[in-house]
């Protein structure tokens, strides 16, 4: 992918384009690196942490101005940087499944492309730090602490690969440290960028944490529900062996099924059968109920915060009650 022909992104745009402009501002002299970074940033839609940051900036006395875009870009870079390993895993699987016959040149070129992405990750994370340094000491300290926590929680996820004894407590702790803390960071930085007082920032942080957790549980449920519909969607968690709340609940309802889970990593049809079992056993419903509890806490956290309508709208977008998910 190249950047040729793209409309230059608008910094004032809260979407990926705005982040792109800020993220790539420091890159010079390396078109390949610019391409890699651009590809990374545009590959995924704006995340909750980025959107909540911009919405939280509506909860302060000032408009937030340029700083809120900077904050949004900084938190987005933690997520996007972290998504590289998912992307590389996906590429490795695609190559394994469909490209065994390709010549050494093709594989090498892809590997080098993957290498560029990884190097771009380091740049993105460091760029995020540099952007955040403009936001002041407390924001920077929080950014560093959360980034570290997110990196550690990702490590913990990797440690749990194919762990059929993983507990829901362990899952919730990791989701809290990963998605919860990242979205909380976005909300806090957004509030601060608009000059919100620390009490409001704390409420926004709490909102972000609960929103992030609810959002992740919902995403994990969607992954399983999509797999139940057709083997064409091979559940990501089944492939990677990082089992999430609905799977853990399903194992709880029939422990004998656990031993066969690792084999589903390479068998989409088995994964589909399991996903259907997870729905029928009530595991998906109970996971959604947990997500709903977090959504409720998120709503409560913003009770006394003025200007929070936009942020609250993000909760509705999770569609926890939508028929597609709740089915």
């Amino acid at each position, binding site marked *: 992918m190249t950047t040729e022909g793209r409309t230059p992104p608008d910094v004032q745009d809260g979407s990926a384009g705005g982040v792109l402009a800020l993220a790539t501002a*420091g*890159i010079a002299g*390396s078109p*390949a*690196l610019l391409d890699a970074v651009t590809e990374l940033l545009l590959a995924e839609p704006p995340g909750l942490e980025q959107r909540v940051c911009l919405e939280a900036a509506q909860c302060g006395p000032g408009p937030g101005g340029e700083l809120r875009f900077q904050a949004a870009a900084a938190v987005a870079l933690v997520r996007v940087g*972290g998504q*590289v*390993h*998912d992307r*590389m*895993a996906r590429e*490795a699987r695609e190559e*394994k499944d469909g490209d*065994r016959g390709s010549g050494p040149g093709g*594989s090498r070129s892809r*590997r*080098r492309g*993957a*290498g*560029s992405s*990884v*190097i*771009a*990750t*380091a*740049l993105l*994370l*460091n*760029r995020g*730090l*540099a952007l*955040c*340094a403009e936001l*002041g*000491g407390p924001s*920077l*300290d929080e950014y*560093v*602490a959360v*980034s*570290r926590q*997110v*990196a550690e929680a*990702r*490590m*913990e996820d*990797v*440690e749990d*690969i*194919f*762990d*059929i*004894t993983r507990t829901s407590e362990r899952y919730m702790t990791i989701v809290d440290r990963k998605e919860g803390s990242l979205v909380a960071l976005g909300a806090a930085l957004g509030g601060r960028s608009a000059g919100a007082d620390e009490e409001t920032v704390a409420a926004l942080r709490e909102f972000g944490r609960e929103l992030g957790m609810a959002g992740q549980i919902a995403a994990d449920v969607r992954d399983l529900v999509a797999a139940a519909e057709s083997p064409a969607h091979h559940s990501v968690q089944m492939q*990677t*062996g990082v089992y999430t709340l609905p799977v853990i609940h399903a194992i709880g309802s029939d422990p004998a099924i*656990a*031993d066969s889970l*690792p*084999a589903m*990593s390479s068998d989409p049809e088995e994964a589909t059968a399991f996903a259907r079992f997870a729905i029928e056993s009530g595991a998906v419903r109970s996971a959604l109920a947990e997500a709903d509890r977090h959504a409720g806490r998120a709503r409560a956290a913003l009770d006394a915060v003025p200007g929070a309508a936009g942020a609250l709208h993000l909760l509705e977008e999770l569609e926890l009650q939508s028929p597609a998910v709740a089915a």
Partner: protein
Amino acid sequence: MSTETVETIAEAEVVVVGGGPAGAACAARLAELGRDVLVVEKSEFPRDKACGDGITPLCATQLRMLDLDWLVDDAHPITGLRGNLDYRHSRMVRFKRKPVRDWHAYTIGRCPMDDAILGAARERGARLLTARVDRPLLDGDRVTGVRVHSREHGEAVVAARYLVAADGATSRLRRELGVDGPEGGIRTYGIRQYFRTERRLDPCYDIYVPLEHNASGLVGYGWVFPLGDHEANFGLGYVEGPGLGEPGPIREMFAQFVKNLSLRLGERFGDVEPIGKHMGSPVGIGFSSSRCQAGDVFLVGDAARMTDPITGEGIAYALVGGRRIAELVDRTARIGRNGLVAGKDLARRFPRLGMNVASFARVTTQMMNSGGAGGTDGESEQPHNPTVKRLVLNVDPFDPWWSATPVGQLVTSLDEDAARELEAVNHEALDAIDVTAPFVREALAKLLVSGAGPVGAATVLLAARACGGGEEPALRGLARAAAYAPLIEPVLAEVVDSPKDAPEHLNNAGIVLMSDFVLTRAWAAQAGLPLEATRELAEALESTSSGVHMVHEDRYDWTQGTERHLATIDTLSGRLLGTVAGVAASLAGAPELAEPLRRYGRHLACAYRLAAGIVELLVGDDVSAKAPGYEVARGFYSLPVLAAARDADLRRLLVRGLDLDDSSGFIEAVRASGGLEDGLAECRAAAERAKAAVADAPLVRPELLAALADSAVEHAERSIGSATSGEREGQTLAGKT
């Protein structure tokens, strides 16, 4: 306090429970330190023990420290390791012979070895009591003794002030103390039997994978370790737990293993006859730094689960750990329990031990049972991941202390306070790798000592002192950040070479996560710095990321030229080292010196990086298991190689690819072309530029900065000298910046 009224049959300041290698080594050291020590051992020695009988170089060194040279000199030398796949394919890796008198490895039977180690402890003054220890006697967390049962006295008490639990993998004391925490449902077993073989045995460790039962792969391996020309220790060990396959009864599996060896490798062994009975035992895997100490009770060896989770080796850990625990007990006796805890100390020394064995075993099981074979690709029989292969499967002794590196030695010679600070930063950096993900801790600890970590930290500490400071608390954080930041490059470099069929979970994801981890550690270390300094450092880290990309863009490019090469080095390392040197000056209260220090740091980085290029080409690096020319073979050309590539013949060698098993011809060609002189001249010039940058600055101690710059050149010169004389330096060269 116990109110039982049983006879007190002995008393000692320290009671060591267990007379195996860990307990005996601990007792020997305690006796050397003048402590009154009693070993309580349940068995009459000499006694036999289930073990593979392999002796690593570290183990041999420890035995010699106990004056057991005769034991090592009489041991059966081992010259290599042969990996065997499916009893069909095999590959031999020859060990290097050590420069002095030790072979790389040996075998010694446990029966004579354990007896000799216990004998060494007794010669040093340790006493011995034969009795079974049932439980510790505690008053709160203060030790008062142990409850024992002996044939002579029945139930009795041995009074003691300190207690060392070295009572093996099934440690009763560990259970009694309540530190026998969850291990993720993981259990590890080993079984062995001696055999006489008709055919003469090759003097190598033979490892057999995969280990299977009912067509399902198990995490473990079978072994044949020769104890003589016609006598060997046959055995197998495996990990058992949820999702880890279904092992059968261990004796049946062992019988099948021996049968397979006879049937499928009959030519290698001929007829085999058992000598004595088989012997099995649980293995102490699953070390946790939080479960090595309970008040004044210290655990060590298998009782502290100090067995290598990859190789199953435990004797070296037992001997080193026993000695170290003795020193901690002595320290506690002298100054109280207000300092270092045993677990943290052992975790720093042995970063591999703390890995999550369950996680490693699950992924390995999945790999084996989904088409792979024992972590190899079935064709080349190499581990998938270059990082795993190079950093983790290298079981040579590994010293994580920066004080042993050339730059560490330089700091020690220049300034005692700076040396103490460097040691503290070294410890903090190791402690900061506080994760249990498989391989991460060990790989990062190795990169921390073999890469530019010590150089970055030393630059901060010496720059501050050169400016008249050095006591400022924020300096330590800056030094830690300077140690972590250069790791970005080697961590990221690994991912590009991952084989295409490699299982993604052990390769890319793990390494990418390591890079996140390194970055966030580098950031976190900056906490407490002024905001402006953090901004500067963030930009420097961005520059490092761009530099990594430039390095990879220039891969396999011998036309890049000196100018581009130096520009890459500056982007990669110069900006970073310049920034930390400048910030160090500001923190030391001399902001007016920040600018010259920045320039100094940039040139210093260049000098060190150029020196590293020479060192890597000529001598490689033992800690990260890089053979001479390793980087050239991967397409990363240092200045001597670029200079030599003017020669068409040498370019042809580069195109053909460098054979790391025989790189001497290539290195000679580089030398003959004058490439080494060119590289060294640039290195000298960079060092001179560094010194010139601060020549007019009103430094309090300018000699510190001059010595640091000169040391880069000395590294390069020393490696050229040692390569010329045919010797390889056996230590880490912290020359990469």
